[in-house]
C-alpha cells in the first residue's frame, strides 16, 4: 500500500444514542479511539456494530450524542469527513467493470490523476488482469477486493470495515488479513466489526464488545481480548 500522506486521526463518540422507530440500536455509547489504533468491534447480531460504523461513516445521523475527530493535519481532518468504508454489500455496480467502478468513484472524489490511481490500486488488490470484466461476473472474494480498492481511493485516514471477511474462502481471508495489516502498518485508524477469532482479528490492537447497543467490554490485551471475540466470559 502507498505510504501515508497524513498524520493519523482519532475518533471520539460521545454519548451516542441511535433510535430506529421503537428500537434503540445504540445506548449512550462513549468511545475514544486513538490515532492509528486498530479497533475490533465484536458482538452478536443486532448488537449495534453496523449502526456504530455507519455513524462513524456519517451515513447515519445519531439520535443523540456526537462524533468528533482528533489529531492529524488539516488535510487528514478534512479527509475524515469521508472515511473509507467497506460494508457487508460490495457498494459497487454489477453492470460496470472493476476499472469503471473505481474510475467512477475516483472522479466523484476528485482524486488527482484518477487513471493512475485506479491502475495502481487494481495492481495492489490483484485484479489487473480482470480490470475490464463486469463486477457481476466476480466471486465474493473478488468483489471484496474491488470494495477495498474503492475504500482506499482517496487514501483515507480512517478505514471502517463491517464484517469484511463474510463469505470469503480461507485464501480470501488470508489475502484480506494481509491487506488490512498493510493498511494498519501505514498508521491509518481502523474500526472493524468481526465475528469470532481469525487471522483478521489478530491484527486488532484493541477490542470492544457491544451488547444490546451498549459497550460491555473494552480491552487491549491477552485473554480478555480473546474472550471478547469469542463471547466467552473472561
Amino acid at each position, binding site marked *: 500500500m502507498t505510504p501515508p500522506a497524513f498524520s493519523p486521526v482519532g475518533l471520539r463518540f460521545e454519548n451516542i444514542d441511535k433510535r430506529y422507530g421503537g428500537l434503540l440500536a445504540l445506548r449512550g455509547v462513549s468511545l475514544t479511539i486513538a490515532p492509528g489504533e486498530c479497533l475490533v468491534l465484536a458482538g452478536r447480531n443486532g448488537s449495534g456494530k453496523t449502526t456504530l460504523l455507519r455513524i462513524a461513516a456519517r451515513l447515519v445521523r445519531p439520535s443523540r450524542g456526537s462524533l468528533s475527530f482528533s489529531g492529524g493535519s488539516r488535510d487528514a481532518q478534512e479527509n475524515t469527513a469521508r472515511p473509507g468504508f467497506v460494508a457487508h454489500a460490495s*457498494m459497487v455496480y454489477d453492470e460496470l467493470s472493476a476499472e469503471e467502478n473505481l474510475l467512477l468513484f475516483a472522479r466523484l472524489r476528485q482524486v488527482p490523476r484518477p487513471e493512475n490511481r485506479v491502475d495502481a490500486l487494481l495492481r495492489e488488490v490483484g485484479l489487473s488482469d480482470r480490470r475490464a470484466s463486469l463486477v457481476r461476473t466476480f466471486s465474493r472474494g473478488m468483489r471484496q477486493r474491488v470494495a477495498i480498492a474503492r475504500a482506499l481511493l482517496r487514501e483515507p485516514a480512517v478505514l471502517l470495515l463491517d464484517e469484511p471477511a463474510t463469505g470469503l474462502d480461507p485464501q480470501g481471508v488470508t489475502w484480506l488479513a494481509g491487506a488490512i495489516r498493510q493498511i494498519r502498518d501505514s498508521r491509518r485508524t481502523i474500526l472493524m466489526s468481526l465475528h469470532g477469532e481469525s487471522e483478521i482479528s489478530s491484527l486488532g490492537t484493541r477490542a470492544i464488545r457491544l451488547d444490546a447497543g451498549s459497550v460491555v467490554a473494552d480491552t487491549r490485551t491477552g485473554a480478555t481480548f480473546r474472550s471478547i471475540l469469542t463471547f466467552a466470559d473472561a
Partner: protein
Amino acid sequence: MSLLSNTFVLLGKELRTEFRSRELLTTTIVFILIVIVLFSFTFDPTSDESRRFAPGLLWLAFLFASSLMLQPCFLREQHNDTLSALRLSVTDPFAIFLAKLAANTLFLLLTELLLLPIFATMYNVPVLSVLHWLALVFFLASLGISIAGTALSAISAQARMRELLLPLLMLPLLTPILVASTEVTKALFDRAPYVQWKGIGFLAVFDVVFLTALCLFGEYLLEE
C-alpha cells in the same frame, strides 16, 4: 463546480448502465406502444375525435410509463448499497438527484420522440408543423415528471410497500402536469394550431418550484 462535475460523472454512469442493460427504455417503449396500438384498434378514431382525446391518451400513457421507468431509479442503488458509496463520495448529495433526474428526463424524451411518429400515424394527427412546440412541451413535462418522480422514488425505495407506493404517491402529484400538458398538446393538435402559453408557463413554474424544493430538502430523502 464540484456539484456540476459530480453530476456529469454520475450522469455518465446512469447513461452507461442503462444503454448496457436497456431495461428501462425497453419496458417504457413497449408499454406506451401497447397502449397506443390497443386504443387505436379498440376505438378506430376519426381525425376530429383524435384531436380531442388523443392528447389525453398520449400523456396518460407517458405518465404511467414514467412510473415504470422511475421505480428502479433508487431501488437499483439499494442492491449493493451503492447509494451509501455515492453518499460517501459526492460533495453535495443534490448531485445524485440532478444526475438521476437528468437521465430520467433524457430517457423519457427519447421514448416520447421515438413514439411520436407512430402515434401521429395511427391517430392521423399532423405533428410536423408544430414539432418544435411539441418538443418544448415534451421537455417541460418530462422534466417535471422526472423531478417529482425521482424525489418520490428516493422516498418509496426505503418503504416497505415500495412497488405500490411510488405510483400511489406519484400519479396524484403529477395530475397538474397531466392536465397542463394535455391542454397545451390539444391546442397544438387543433385544426388551427395555437400555443397555449398559460399551460407552458404552468409547466415551467412547476419545474422550478419542485427543483428548488428538491435542492433544499433532497439530502434528507437520502438519509437512513
